Structures are given as C-alpha cells and as structure tokens.
C-alpha cells in the first residue's frame, strides 16, 4: 500500500453547494473517490491510498491536470484506489467534481 498526498491552489472555488459526494467503487481496476467541501475556497487536497507502488509521478500528473481542468477549489478529495488506470482515475475525478457542482 502506498499513500500519496497532493496540495494545490486554485483560482476559484468549485461552483455548487453540495457538501459531499462519492463516486466509483473499490474494485480491481477501479477506484472510489470521496469529495468533501471542507477547505478554504481556493485550496484543494487529494489524498490517495493505492495498492500499486511506484506510480507517484503518474498520480501527480493526473491530479495536476484534473485541478487545472476542474478548478476544484474548496475540496478535500480522498481516493481509495483498486489499481485503476490513469484515465479511469481522471474520469472519476471529473465525475466527482460534476456531482459536487449540483
């Protein structure tokens, strides 16, 4: 098990008022993403627990691209990974952000 943590600053808070959302499942090749609106409006953290070691750089790139695209200010995001591919991670993060925007 590897634990990773990333902290980003955004230029805005994620729109919407939803306090919490969850998407995906912890299954092989999949992941569960928990999003909570608990941080200051231009901060975002992503904490990851993954069974596959050695992909820190990929996670860093996926998270950075997600933050640039979704501007998820105010969110604390926790990922429970089941060995998902980066594109699946990216998709789940965007799905999660969309759920929070309602």
């Amino acid at each position: 098990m590897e634990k990773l943590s990333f902290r980003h600053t955004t230029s805005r808070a994620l729109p919407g008022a939803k306090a919490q959302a969850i998407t995906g499942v912890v299954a092989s090749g999949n992941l569960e993403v928990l999003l909570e609106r608990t941080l200051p409006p231009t901060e975002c953290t992503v904490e990851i627990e993954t069974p596959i070691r050695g992909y820190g750089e990929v996670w860093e790139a996926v998270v950075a691209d997600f933050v640039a695209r979704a501007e998820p200010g105010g969110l604390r995001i926790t990922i429970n990974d089941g060995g998902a591919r980066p594109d699946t991670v990216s998709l789940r993060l965007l799905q999660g952000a969309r759920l929070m925007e309602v």
Partner: protein
Amino acid sequence: MSGWRREREARDARIEAGRSHAEGKVVAADKVVDLLEAILRPGDRVCLEGDNQKQADCLARGLSQCDPSRVHDLHMVQSGIVLPEHLDIFEQGIAKRLDYSYSGPQGGRIARMLYGGQIELGAVHTYLELFARYFVDLTPNVALIAGVSADRDGNLYTGPNTEDTPTVVEATAFKNGVVVAQVNEIVDRVPRVDIPGDRVDFVVEADKPFYVEPLFTRDPAAMTETQILMAMMAIKGIYAEYGIRRLNHGIGFGTAAIELLLPTYAERLGLKGEIATHWALNPHPTLIPAIESGWVKQVHCFGSEVGMDRYIRERSDIFFTGADGSLRSNRAFCQTAGLYACDLFIGSTLQIDLTGHSSTVTQNRVAGFGGAPNMGSDPHGRRHPSDTWMKAGREAQVTGDPALMRGRKLVVQIVETFGDGLVPTFVERLDALELAKKIGLELAPVMVYADDVTHIVTEEGIANLLLCRTADEREQAIRGVAGYTEIGRGRDRAMVERLRQRGIVRRPEDLGIEPLDADRSLLAAKSIKDLVHWSGGLYEPPAKFRNW
C-alpha cells in the same frame, strides 16, 4: 516418363498404406494414430487445421500420440496455434519447424518455446500470406482438416465455420497431397457439399465434436466508460468524417463498443445509412443491435461465432448462407474482401512505438497477428475509388502530379493508453525487436507498419497521422494521445497544442464530446442477455457468457 509423376506415386503409396486402417475412406476414431503413422513421412509439411476458431482437435490428439521414431521433423504450416497439442508435438520431437499466423491462447507458451529453441520458426504470417505460400513454397504434403459431417465418399460439410478449409484442401489435394478430415458424424447425405469428396482421402469419425473457440464474443457488461469514450470519438471523428461504409473491425472491446453505439449514439448523430453498412466481419454478437435496427446491409464472414448459427440462418438478407440455410464463411475470400473492398480497418494492439509501428508481440507473449497485417495495410493493388479512400488520399502528403494521386485505406489503431496491469501501450521500442534478436529472426514481427497506420484513437484523443508532414510532427502527434504513459508525459506540450490547432490531434472537446457523457447507458445492449433479447431469442450464447 515416370520421373515426372513421383509425387503422385508417393501420394498413392501413402494412401495405400492408410487404406489398411480404413473401410473405404472411413477411419474409426481409435485408428487415428495408426492412420497418421501410415501416411506421414519424416520431414513432411503438414497443415493441422487450427483455424481462428474451428479445430481439428481429434487429429491433433492423434498426431501428438504418434511414435516420434516414425513420425518426426514435421514442418507445421497452419494458421492457428490454439490447442496445447499444437505445441506438444514440438516438445515430443514429432514436429520441428513452424510457419503460422495466430497463437492467441498459446501466446505465452509459444514465446517460452521460441526462446528455448524448441521450435524452429519460419515466420509469423498474416492469414492471406500463409495461404498464398500454401500454393508456392509451403504446399502441404498432408492436410488434417475438420468438418461437421461427411458421407462415405468424403463429401464434406464444414458447417458455418468453413474458415480455412477450402484453401487448405485446394493446396493439398491438387498438388499430390493427402487430405484427412475429422467429422462429428458420418451421414448418408451431407446438408451441403463444402468440399467435394474426390478431394478428401480419409474421413475420421471423431470421438467428440470438434472444438470451436468463441473468439468474437465481447460481453457488454465488461465494457468500460473509457472504451465507450473511444468509440464515440471514433464514430464522430473518423466514421462520420470520412463517411465510412465498408469496413472491418478487430476483436477488441473498443470496436465492440462502436458496434453497440451505432443504434444509439451514431443514430442520434443522424449517421444511419451513411456509415457502417457493408462489412467484412465475423458474426460479432455485439453487431446484433445494429443489424436489428436496420443499420447493416451486408456482412461477409471469415468464420462463424459460437451461438450465432440460428440468428444467421434467420437473417440471410444480411449474411452469406448456403442452400442448407447455414452460414458459409471463407477466410481467404473474406481477407481478400477486407484488403481490397473495405475502406477502413480498425483494431487494437499491445504496443505502439513513436513512429506508429505496432505489434502484439511482447517479451512474454507471441500472440501472432492473424488477419491484422493484411486488413491493416494499404493495398497498393487497389484501383477503384470511393469517397472515403480519395479523402484519405488527399490528406496524405501528395507528391508529384495530383491527377495521379491514389487514395488511402484508413488503418486505425484504437487503444487504451495502458493495458492490463498498468502496462503502457506506448513504448520507445517494440518488444518485438528484442524477440527478433533473441531468437534470430531476420524480420522483426511487426503487426502494422507505421506507414500503413493513418489514425490512432485513445481515450485522450485522435492522432491523424495522414496530416503529419515531418517525423517530428508524427512523434508528437503520437505522444499527444499517449495519455499518462511515459511517452505521453514526454510530449512537447506547445507543439502538441499546435498540432491540435491543425486538427492533427483532436481531443474529445474538439469533437464536441463531453467525456462525462461516455456512459454505459449509451450501449444498445448492456449485457449478453440484452443481445439475446435483441436477437429475438435466436442468439444462443455459450455457457461461459451466460451470467444470468
């Protein structure tokens, strides 16, 4: 001039030796080993019919039980290495040399045996190429083939999986070879004659029906959002753009997703009748919803698929069927159709390098190529135009007099940037090169060469390689869709953005596709059971796909 009929005399002697184990042409299952030991000679070229799907398994078991002191050093020339026995005979010393096309299920073991030097490998061919060599320099001395039934004269009914049989028999029977057919039953009259009896020397009534590999069934339940997204991009960014009517699909989940999006997503885009009407394709169960919705005009098949027989019988407007009503497939003709009469091939691969060369050979698996190198190549012998072909020709760099421009076949690789176990699809250097070096191959086993590939589709976007004008542009276009692989992360971001402005790299949003809309609800069928419903109960999936 007896010196000009030696092959014929040798053939007659083999048949004479075999006759002592037969009643007329008919051989009992428990006499197979005796028969094979009688008709085979050391060093023979043998085609043990291992097709993509239909397997002469009874004859394969028989061959593997032959005495290696009598039957040895055989040169196997068969399209598929599918059953364990196909490789057992190399361990036993019965066979020595191999020329083949496809080894999917045995890909791991064949790699180990190649590394271990247990197999002397000729080449990994594409189907049509191996068939061609049957008529030039790899003509079989003995063909061991499979059919559904035969009469006592040897007239053979292959059933829907005719596949390679006519080609193998043509090459063997008309060049002084011996043809042995295993059949599930001997009947008084066959439903239709796929192979005339005077081309079949012995008929073995097998102890059990021949094995058929359900190779073309993709369970919609296992389809992911990523595959659906790729399918949406392919439909909108390639099929619609080029107006592709005549095509062939590979066997991956990406292309199966395209099939399932035709009656839903593509229908909403108003593409019905404009794309995907004429096919060279195995009867994919995932094509059922498109057929039932009136999308598909015609399908010619390489082989059949387990469970599709009744459905095909009831849809003879779509499929090629015999007087008996069942499918008539033919791999050689369908491969020719795919080469010359289709404007697009789209399939998957395991590795793509920075120039666009691709291979399914990895360090641990030699899966062979089957039909992909043929389907996935631009046929320089083509002389008929189509709008699709001409448009692609115009996009490719035109040199010289434009009036002499030829068109281009679209050859599309649809891949996820990471394969199983997070193995990257995009690599600096194909493992195939390493394998070639290790086992001393003169020609690296490349599936589709870079100069034949026109587009690469991944979950990140579409790279149009036709529009690239320099090697550097090509490399960055490939890196630009390689996602989070090392190759993808190593891109020149500014240059990829410039390529994007020129439409060489296109993202989902450039195509008006929202990745979050890539949802399983878009699939016309979400399970095998849905496919059965679509077919009105005519599709009968094999047990391993019946998960309800």
